């Protein structure tokens, strides 16, 4: 596959324009023109369905990590019946290695607001909530302001642009809980409860907030919508990788010279991201490993990276996933046992405790890994860990248990020597 020309790519979500967070500047640079088109141009957009179809055709894969086609998800909403319908925007952003949505809050909040309003129009939604993790206090304040400015400009509220549509838009702050990023847990938290995930089905489109039809989308996913409306689905599909198209906010952290969030097409080679975009490994060291899309996505060894690009198809060939495109880069001196233990500690800490395989399993993973980390493990413990991961996977209400299991399985399999070297020589291993 040809490499996207990422060096000449012009950012759409976080372009290099000063003070874009000010509504006037956003409008001056073409902002809210997609919204105006959708709400008022009846020839181009004869009905809500035409908007959904365009977005579906663009194939915006959900940027919250699961990669589900946004327009397809919108099409699952049942027909409007006159009652309330909700859009819940997911700005919980808590997967270790992920720090991209905050860039939108900070630099270009209106592109997200515009995208959310178009989504609401398309699905005949009456109320939008944006759920932002409580730690992002400064971004919560900024979002409140941006939403107020959009109310004042007539883009939110009653009879928007004379379209006869009323849409309300509110911020809801979290208060510290990773699990609230899981969509149904987020709904519980929005309803003012403990964030215990719900069993799916029913999917939120059928039964979401207060039992009403609800769609959940990630902040970045929604921020892509205005460009799809302005430039068309064909344009979006032509950016980056075929099966996972569009611009992507890559968050690069760990042992690189220039960590940060970079907007580039999907499908950029992993090695280009590390060596060119993030300007290589700190201290001139060698690359050892990379986690491509947040802590739950399986780690890759440096020798697996040749020709691998950041899109679902390419990453699948080496047994990993795009996730949130939050890449964590590790140099040659990284202790993989320590890293895996820390990841396991995170998931144990964040398990909500509803399901036994998750509550107990994450505890066991952490405990055994701590033992190995302290040089007190045995080789048979590695097999016990692998066995535990199979017992956890796919047996729980939400995907947190899977997210905890995958890194354990793949890190052990891909760095087995390092784990064995840390284990005591057991009788079993000597025989």
């Amino acid at each position, binding site marked *: 596959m040809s490499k996207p020309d990422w060096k000449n790519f012009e950012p759409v979500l976080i372009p290099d324009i000063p003070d874009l967070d000010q509504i006037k500047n956003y409008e001056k640079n073409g902002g809210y023109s997609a919204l105006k088109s959708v709400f008022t141009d009846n020839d181009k957009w004869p009905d809500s369905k035409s908007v959904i179809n365009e977005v579906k055709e663009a194939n915006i894969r959900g940027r919250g990590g699961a990669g589900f086609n946004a327009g397809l998800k919108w099409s699952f909403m049942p027909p409007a019946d006159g009652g309330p319908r909700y859009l819940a925007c997911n700005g919980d952003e808590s997967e270790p290695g992920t720090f991209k949505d905050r860039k939108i809050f900070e630099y270009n909040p209106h592109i997200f607001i515009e995208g959310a309003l178009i989504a609401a129009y398309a699905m005949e939604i009456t109320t939008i909530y944006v759920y932002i993790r409580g730690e992002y206090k*400064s971004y919560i304040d900024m979002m409140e302001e941006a939403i107020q400015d959009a109310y004042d400009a007539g883009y939110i509220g009653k009879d928007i642009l004379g379209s006869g549509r009323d849409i309300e838009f509110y911020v809801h702050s979290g208060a*510290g*809980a990773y699990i609230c990023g899981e969509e149904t847990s987020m709904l519980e938290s929005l309803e003012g409860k403990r964030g215990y995930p719900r069993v799916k089905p029913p999917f939120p489109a059928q039964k979401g907030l207060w039992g009403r039809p609800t769609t959940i989308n990630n902040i970045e996913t929604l921020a892509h919508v205005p460009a799809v409306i302005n430039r068309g689905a064909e344009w979006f599909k032509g950016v980056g990788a075929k099966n996972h198209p569009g611009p992507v906010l890559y968050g690069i952290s760990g042992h690189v010279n220039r960590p940060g969030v970079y907007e580039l097409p999907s499908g950029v080679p992993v090695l280009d991201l590390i060596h060119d975009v993030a300007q290589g490994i700190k201290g001139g060291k060698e690359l050892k490993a990379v986690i491509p899309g947040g802590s739950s996505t399986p780690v890759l060894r440096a020798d697996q990276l040749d020709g691998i690009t950041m899109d679902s198809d390419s990453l699948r060939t080496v047994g990993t996933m795009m996730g949130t495109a939050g890449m964590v880069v590790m140099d040659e001196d990284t202790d993989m046992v320590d890293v895996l233990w820390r990841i396991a500690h995170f998931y144990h800490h964040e398990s909500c405790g509803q399901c036994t395989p998750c509550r107990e399993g994450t505890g066991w993973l952490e405990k055994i890994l701590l033992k190995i980390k302290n040089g007190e493990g045995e080789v048979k413990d590695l097999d016990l860990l692998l066995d535990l991961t199979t017992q956890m996977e796919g047996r729980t209400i939400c995907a947190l248990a899977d997210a905890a299991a995958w890194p354990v399985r793949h890190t052990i399999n891909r760095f087995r020597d390092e784990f064995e070297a840390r284990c005591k020589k057991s009788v079993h291993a000597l025989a």
Partner: protein
Amino acid sequence: MAYEFTKEDLKEIEKLKTKYPEVTPVTLPALWIAQNRFGHVNPEVQKLVAKTLDLPEAHVHGVATFYTQYYKEEKGKHVLDVCTCLSCQLCGGYDILNYLEDKLGIKKGETTDDGMFTLNEVECLGACGYAPMLQVTNDKYVNHLTEEKVDNLIESL
């Protein structure tokens, strides 16, 4: 001490109620208002929130204890939440935590005798590209920490 909301607090809570079709969702923002007012949401404050919203105490207690950012007891004047999660771990988050433990003479989870500082180890704060980092009392992020930066921070608080 008897905890009471101010008039402004109550006005804000009334306004919050208009954002949702029922009162239960106000639990989280009302706990935030309470914490900003009193510095924590101990059981007495939880009671006040329950009374104000006319919700069962058990509900408010359940919510307050589920979310880590609500302080269920009094904390130091400044709460330092040091991230040691994945990217911060790789970039020296534990060194920063240890340095602060030595500097303040306390262990993580503890508060200094003069009540000035509480030190915590926390999970990813969504600032991985600025590792190692910490957050001060649920508000300001301090990025790219070094020992010198930590010294300056403590001095400035």
